[in-house]
């Protein structure tokens, strides 16, 4: 029995078990402080080698979820199990505008914890993939936003983790480069059997790329399953939401917000210092 569970769990790259992320709201008008559930009792499993799309409207908890997945934030409740090394593909983070493209490869590589040799190894790959050419000698502050993301994405891509977390990484830059990235991701998916968690507002991109999907709504999992079905449901919902009158939208958002907020007893200053 126990062996079954252990074996079973080994198949999964990511296991979320009743994960919640709670923020204390910063409000002065209220007598009692309130907690906001950015995520509430989220449970799911992602198999190794699976490409999973996260769907949801703005503020539904996608980014919080991806941060917890990446190990940048810790959950307030619940447990997260990650089998393997995960890395968030952060495109613009860690680039220094004053430094040249070349120097930024060193700098961001070091920020990401790559060794000296590894950085040397990836340099050529990054230079080639980013297609920046002569501009690599120019300071990054002179780059267009598309060029910046191309450089950042290329460095992140060279990390080679077991689990990629891609949060809106392909929505900047031109179509040609986005397609190139998507091709590269497909290659990772098909040839290297990487697990990929993919967040994009482009339903079309998600649908063509992902096997499964998790639809987040108001910090909870609304539905999950094969991409086709979830995508269908989600796009249906998006149309419903878009067709709402401004008042209707407001009402819906308010009720969604109220459902995520909980009043709590006031705690002293010492609560900051406890975990």
């Amino acid at each position, binding site marked *: 029995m126990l062996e079954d569970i252990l074996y079973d769990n080994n198949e999964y790259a990511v296991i979320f078990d009743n994960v919640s992320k709670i923020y204390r709201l910063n409000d002065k008008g209220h007598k009692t402080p309130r907690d906001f559930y950015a995520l509430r009792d989220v449970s799911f499993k992602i198999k190794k080698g699976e490409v999973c799309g996260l769907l949801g409207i703005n503020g539904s908890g996608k980014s919080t979820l991806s*941060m917890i997945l990446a190990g940048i*934030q810790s959950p307030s409740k619940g447990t997260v199990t990650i089998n393997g090394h995960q890395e968030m593909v952060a495109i613009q983070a860690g680039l*220094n505008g004053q430094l040249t493209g070349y120097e930024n490869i060193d700098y961001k590589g*070091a*920020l990401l*914890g790559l060794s000296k040799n590894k950085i040397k190894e990836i340099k050529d790959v990054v230079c080639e993939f980013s297609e920046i050419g002569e501009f690599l000698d120019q300071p990054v502050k002179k780059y267009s936003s598309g060029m910046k993301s191309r450089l950042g994405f290329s460095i992140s891509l060279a990390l080679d983790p077991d689990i990629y977390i891609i949060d809106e990484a392909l929505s900047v830059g031109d179509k040609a480069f986005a397609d190139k990235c998507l091709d590269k991701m497909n290659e990772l998916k098909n040839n290297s059997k990487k697990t990929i968690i993919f967040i994009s507002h482009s339903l079309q991109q998600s649908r063509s790329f992902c096997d499964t999907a998790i639809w987040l709504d108001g910090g909870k999992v609304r539905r999950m399953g094969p991409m086709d079905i979830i995508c269908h449901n989600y796009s249906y919902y998006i149309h419903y939401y878009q067709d709402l009158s401004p008042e209707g939208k407001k009402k819906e958002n308010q009720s969604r917000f109220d459902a995520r907020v909980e009043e709590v007893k006031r705690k002293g200053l010492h609560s900051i210092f406890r975990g």
Partner: protein
Amino acid sequence: MFKAIKYVISENVGNLYRIFTISKYTITADIHDSKLGLFWNFANPLIQVMTYWFLFGIVFQRKAVGDIPYLPWMLTGMAVWFFLSPCITNGCNAIFQKAGVISKMKFPVSILPATVIFVEFFNHICFMIITIIGLLLFGFYPSIYWLELIYYMAAAILFAISLALVMSVLNMIARDVRKFVLAIMRLLLYLTPILWDIKTLPKNLQFIMKCNPIFYIVTGYRDCFFYHRGILFYHKQMALFFAITLTLFAIGSTLMYRFKTRFIDLL
């Protein structure tokens, strides 16, 4: 607590290349930032020293301290001050200024104080070049005692990192910490016997001044260049200095360990 200390030490030692590269490119970015670049690393401290020298050496007619002329005596003290002061004020900001990094990637936060200190150490080396040229002009030539500098620099770095560990975490909890420290540092320059001789004070006040870790480093630097008494001559201050430094390091590590997963919530 020991777990925390072990955690911070292993994270720092395991990421030496990362610390070195971040510091290096912070300096490079700063140099690229201006047209004259590296020139300012020398010009800035030089202008500051000239200001203080003009004020105290010329306007207030400060006499030689013992056998040592005022300008070289002050210069050695200022060298330490212009190293440790930015270490402390920028150390407060060590984590906060890297908000864009720690919120976007998995990052060993406890190495950030060290990266700030090494940037300042580079500036300190620039300042030391000016100091040594000044000393040579005044006829203080290299001696075996100059090697003591290595010890005192290492001690200063250790102290600065320990203090920055504490301050950077506290500054994440409340940003008021840095504002408070900025105000205190302005005061501390005059409260530390850098521009004036400690012997002008009554005995009991002298004792309090000697407890100041910054003054221990200042005394050490002056010993290397002028007095040549050796490191062990100041063994009491040395013991106190390391007691303070290790306590700060223990507190800083504990804070760092306790907050390591929660810095993003505090941004």
